């Protein structure tokens, strides 16, 4: 299989293969994209843009595998999860290193991501309990009623580039534990982590066709979205594409859960413990170089000018101390942007901010990382006095850019969040139970943090975006995942 450990001349870079019906197969495609290490710009591998026929073939194998896979007792399917979990533990460091190399995030962040993926597998291992239905005796004299949960067939996943190890696992373990079969189309920018995890699933011995990986781009996505044999799709990415995936999938009667963009607000109240708040805000804004749908983007100082200035100084000092560099260096706190295109987009937003009149008080452009001069780095950046309705204050930048905003009171801050089209996450930093309670009760977002910078739900809770951050009803992870990947069947019985 592909080894993402060496660097390689572009022509010699290994080709990523698809995993179909339990076999690693070379795509017939003649079109390839480079998989580039964003810290070094070296080409790690080349990923094929698989054809529609290859997708259809994978779907057919998944459809055939479904017939036998769904008949296995849930306990047996759960055992595959235990095997997979053990393999993921065994290859934890290797998978984390691959992830850092292809994505750029720090090695600690990569380890933390793989851990989250394992947690979803661990949760799905409890499928005999998770998938239980319910019943009621004597709904009428002599009549009993029961509700059972059954799998539906083939599901597909279209994950993004920012969490290539974790996000497919918000869905995949639950889907197959429920008795469905699965096709993943990894992000073409970062296919190597999923490739490694595919190797582990192969080693775990899942029957052929239960899990399939087809690499490619929009053609592969469209083939999955339009196939009548695919029962549902899970997507994470930008809002316009989430909207497209949702409308295309549901138009043909598929289930769809589609997560889009975000613009997350962090409210800092005057009574917050600032020393403890700073590290949480730093991780929120600059972790994964800001390339998280839960990243804090707008930091709102709630209170008077003196508090605003005090907070600004602390934020600027902390951000300035953040070490940017190659994620494989354990002293590095922030890696590069995922790609040149991603870096250019963030630089463009910084230009926009300047044109909009915001004051750039910490400029991460032109940062030099010794030994990695070609890397796609932008250092921690802070805009002061941002209007929440401006472009930089309202749109997702997806980079290490903090927008510092003033609000005279709690209600004004809350209104800013309400007026933003996105509703993925929001956090409050306070010592007041009253403000915390008011915030979590009233705020219009789905993942809420109280003195937490990244409110990332663990495996047993749904990842709950709202507004333009999510299209669908049932989210990834938790019981939502079980409900998404099963159909209800109600049986009413009477015996004569």
């Amino acid at each position, binding site marked *: 299989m592909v080894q993402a450990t060496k660097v390689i001349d572009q022509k010699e870079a290994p080709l990523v293969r698809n995993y179909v019906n339990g076999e690693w197969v070379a795509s017939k495609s003649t079109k390839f994209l480079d998989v580039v290490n964003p810290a070094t710009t070296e080409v790690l591998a080349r990923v094929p843009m698989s054809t529609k026929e290859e997708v259809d073939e994978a779907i057919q194998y998944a459809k055939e595998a479904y017939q036998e896979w769904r008949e296995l007792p849930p306990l047996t399917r759960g055992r595959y999860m235990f095997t997979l979990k053990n393999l993921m*533990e065994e290859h934890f460091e290797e998978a984390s290193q691959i992830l850092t190399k292809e994505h750029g995030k720090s090695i600690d962040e990569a*380890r*933390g991501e793989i*851990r989250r993926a394992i947690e979803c597998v661990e949760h799905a291992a409890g499928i005999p309990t998770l998938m239980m239905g319910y019943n009621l005796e004597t709904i009428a004299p002599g009549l009993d009623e029961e509700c059972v949960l059954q799998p539906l067939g083939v599901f597909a996943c279209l994950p993004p580039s920012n969490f290539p190890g974790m996000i497919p696992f918000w869905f995949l373990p639950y889907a197959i534990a429920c008795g469905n079969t699965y096709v993943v189309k990894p992000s073409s920018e970062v296919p190597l982590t999923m490739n490694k995890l595919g190797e582990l699933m192969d080693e775990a011995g899942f029957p052929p066709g239960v899990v399939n990986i087809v690499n490619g781009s929009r053609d592969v996505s469209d083939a999955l979205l339009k196939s009548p044999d695919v029962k549902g799709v899970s997507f994470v990415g930008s809002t316009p594409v989430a909207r497209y995936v949702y409308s295309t999938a549901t138009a043909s009667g598929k289930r769809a859960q589609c997560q889009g963009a975000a613009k997350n607000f962090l409210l800092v109240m005057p009574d917050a413990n600032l020393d403890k708040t700073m*590290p949480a805000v*730093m991780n929120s804004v600059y972790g994964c170089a800001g390339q998280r749908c839960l990243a804090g983007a707008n930091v709102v100082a709630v209170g008077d000018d003196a508090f605003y200035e005090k907070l600004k100084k602390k934020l600027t000092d902390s951000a300035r101390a953040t070490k940017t560099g190659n994620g494989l260096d354990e002293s590095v706190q922030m890696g590069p942007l995922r790609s040149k295109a991603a870096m250019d987009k963030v630089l463009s937003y910084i230009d926009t901010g300047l044109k909009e009149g915001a004051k750039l008080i910490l400029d991460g452009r032109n940062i030099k990382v010794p030994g990695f001069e070609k890397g796609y780095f932008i250092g921690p950046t802070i805009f002061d006095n941002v209007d929440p309705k401006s472009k930089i204050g309202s749109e997702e930048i997806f980079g290490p850019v903090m927008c510092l905003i003033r609000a005279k009171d709690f209600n004004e801050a809350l209104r800013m969040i309400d007026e933003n089209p996105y509703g993925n996450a929001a956090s409050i930093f306070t010592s007041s139970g009253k403000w915390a309670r008011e915030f979590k009760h009233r705020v219009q977002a789905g993942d809420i943090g109280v003195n937490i910078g*990244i409110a990332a739900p663990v495996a047993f809770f749904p990842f709950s975006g709202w507004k333009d951050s999510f299209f669908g009803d049932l989210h990834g992870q938790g019981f939502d995942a079980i409900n998404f990947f099963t159909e209800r069947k109600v049986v009413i019985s009477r015996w004569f």
Partner: protein
Amino acid sequence: MELTTFSMVLRYTLQLEDQTGQFYRALAANSNLMQAKDLFTKFADNSDRRKKDLERTARESVDHSLLEPVSGLFEETCTINTAIPNDASITDAISTARALEDKMQKFYTEAGDKINFISNVSRLYKRYAQDRTKALASLQDFT
């Protein structure tokens, strides 16, 4: 050097435990110090156990959403001296061991506070700080 990330703190701790384990193994093998052989062997075994537990707990607990920068923790504050001559007396050996345990106790206490965002590992550090206090007491009893 300042330890600024969770990984750095963990890596440095493992190095210290490695060094500690080797130190106690050497003492246990020293024919001049046979009267403390069992104690030194136990301490060396404890270091090995702590290393394994630390690696496992860290691997199982690290979470990208909880990671925070670490500040104010420096390698220099816990540089341990494990150099001891072959002909060292039991008094010298116990004295060096006590200095080491004292530094390790302080390091685990301080580092445990700094990485409290990964609470399982932080708790482990605090437990190990207590272990080192007990080790100090054992060394005190020995003299």
